């Protein structure tokens, strides 16, 4: 912390500022208009991900405005001396995927990005906030951010996940329990044996969706799993610096028995594959359940929002989702597009086919994930099964680049938001794990992956 004056928010120093094309242009314009510089270009890294094409890395494939915005990021980074992983870069990918895989994200850091899913980086024990464009400008100019003190919220996950259950099911389960605004004003810390047992990629999946409960950040205290993941990564400290950093990180880990403003306990042992039926990520349920009936909700506003959501989804209270026909499956996004996610999907798809009439899109989170998957031959499994294998980017997660659901289509998606129109105007998103999404692609209908493993 740089300063804390009375009746003012704290001034926090930002150790890592990540940037992408959509939320930064107005911030750079602000700097330019005021004749300011980027204070710490060495702590600022940019990538192109939200509106980039995934069929091939050719800007002629997206509309002119998207292409102009991508080019503008190139100009801004060149002018202000910011490192950019551009379309040609082998390090490019979704901002929250590459931060971790390049070793930029480290324990104890204060990290920001003009993107709400910055919470992903909390998986390393960093404090990572999504910010708006005005704040992007503040951080570019001063390397600092104003923050009022958040409350702390422990989500303790007990038990052991069964076969066919993934970190995505944990977080969808937590969302269904905590609610879409249950985390407002809080930073969530995930604790408990089920979290400790997760690898880093799974922890990132959990922290990623923290924002869907409205929390400012989500985190997991670092441990040996964290340090092993980081060792040897491009931007991670090396040699003596590594030893010193490691000592610092071990000290920074939250000790057991820390006091929280609020605690919720969740059992991963009894967890089933989760799927959403509504239009926000907390409207989810175990895949074998029926959609709740309206008398299930005591609050009249909540009842209205469920009613509205089901009307949009063209689903009925009390209806089962298992066996419901689907049109599209999307494997991708900063929630589930890492190599372990692709391995899960490919493992299930190997020797099988995507059902006739179903479109399956597999979009790796970064060019590095893509190379790794290709080295393992996963792309061949996807292609042979009839899925599309794409270049890295956000793609159908937010449908800015032309990858989108058509109106009325049902899409099982491994991404994080099922809002109305999020994945294409009129499209109907069902959020689930890579296993559930893949099993559903094979059957052409919503399927419990445990029946296929």
């Amino acid at each position: 912390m740089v300063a804390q004056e009375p009746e003012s928010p704290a001034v926090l120093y930002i150790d890592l500022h990540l940037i992408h094309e959509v939320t930064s242009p107005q911030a750079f314009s602000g700097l330019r208009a005021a004749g300011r510089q980027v204070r710490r270009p060495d702590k600022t890294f940019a990538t192109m991900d939200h509106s980039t094409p995934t069929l091939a890395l050719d800007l002629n494939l997206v509309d002119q405005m998207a292409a102009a915005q991508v080019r503008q990021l190139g100009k801004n980074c060149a002018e202000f001396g910011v490192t950019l992983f551009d379309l040609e870069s082998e390090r490019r990918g979704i901002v929250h995927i590459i931060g971790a895989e390049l070793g930029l994200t480290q324990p104890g850091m204060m990290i920001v990005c003009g993107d709400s899913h910055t919470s992903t980086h909390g998986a390393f024990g960093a404090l990572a906030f999504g910010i708006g464009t005005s704040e992007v400008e503040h951080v570019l100019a001063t390397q600092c951010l104003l923050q009022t003190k958040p409350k702390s919220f422990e989500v303790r996950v007990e038990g052991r996940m069964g076969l066919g259950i993934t970190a995505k099911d944990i977080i969808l389960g937590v969302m269904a329990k905590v609610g879409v605004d249950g985390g407002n004003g809080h930073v969530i810390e995930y604790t408990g044996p089920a979290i400790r047992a997760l690898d880093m990629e799974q922890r990132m999946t959990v922290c990623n969706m923290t924002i869907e409960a409205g929390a400012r950040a989500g985190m997991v205290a670092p441990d040996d799993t964290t340090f092993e993941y980081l060792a040897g990564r491009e931007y991670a400290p090396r040699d003596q610096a590594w030893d010193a950093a490691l000592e610092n990180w071990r000290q920074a880990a939250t000790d057991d028995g820390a006091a929280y403003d609020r605690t919720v306990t969740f059992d991963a042992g009894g967890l089933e594959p989760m799927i959403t039926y509504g239009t926000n990520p907390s409207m989810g349920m175990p895949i074998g359940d029926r959609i709740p009936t309206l008398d299930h909700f005591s609050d009249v506003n909540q009842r209205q929002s469920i009613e509205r959501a089901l009307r949009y989804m063209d689903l009925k209270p009390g209806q089962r989702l298992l066996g419901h026909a689907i049109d599209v499956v999307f494997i991708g996004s900063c929630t589930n597009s890492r190599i372990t996610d692709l391995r899960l999907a490919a493992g299930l798809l190997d020797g099988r086919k995507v059902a006739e009439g179903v479109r399956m899109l597999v979009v790796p989170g970064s060019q590095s994930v893509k190379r790794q998957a290709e080295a393992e031959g996963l792309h061949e499994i996807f292609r042979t099964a009839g899925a599309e294998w794409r270049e890295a980017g956000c793609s159908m997660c937010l449908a800015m680049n032309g990858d989108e659901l058509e109106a009325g289509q049902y899409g099982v998606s491994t991404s994080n938001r099922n809002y109305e129109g999020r994945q294409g105007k009129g499209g109907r998103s069902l959020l689930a794990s890579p296993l559930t999404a893949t099993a559903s692609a094979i059957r052409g209908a919503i399927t419990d992956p445990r029946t296929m493993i």
Partner: protein
Amino acid sequence: MEKFSRLTSHLVPLAQRDVDTDQIIPARFLKVIDKEGLGEHLFEDWRKLPDGSPNPEFVFNRPEVQGAQILLAGSNFGCGSSREHAPWALLDWGVRAVISTSYADIFRNNSIKNGLLPVIVDAEVHSELFGMVDRDPHAEVTIDLVSQTVSFGNGHAASFPMDPFAKHSLLEGVDQLGYLLSMEEKISAYEASHDGF
């Protein structure tokens, strides 16, 4: 940004809770590199029918709300994406203040930085306000930031919380960047003592 001190206006009532920023301004309109003109696409997918014509049912299209500067919104307004395009679009349409029981943190932050005042009232006042608009769509509400009160009807008044720092920047119309820039010495001192990152 424009100063905010006192505002009297009728309301745009939007009772739905958990309205996300993807609805306020869908992603396909985020390809801009400036802030202007986004009001045209405010709530685009709710304002327009599939054939592109205006949806007469949607509150923002009703004749009686035209010119209103206060949005009366359901709880947890502005959840989801951090896009500052959401407050930009609201302001560009003409909204200067929102009244709700709660907001998503990032939206609230973004709004204050642009002179869009997020007013928090309790559930009782919230439903009184909806009741009032229901009876009279032209009924006016006054928001006074100096005294932190919302007043309406025959002498109803409710106070609302606002942190002193945000209040100051809204009243003066000053960007919070100025405050950060004034910290230059402390920032340099911090950097000098935390080298090696």
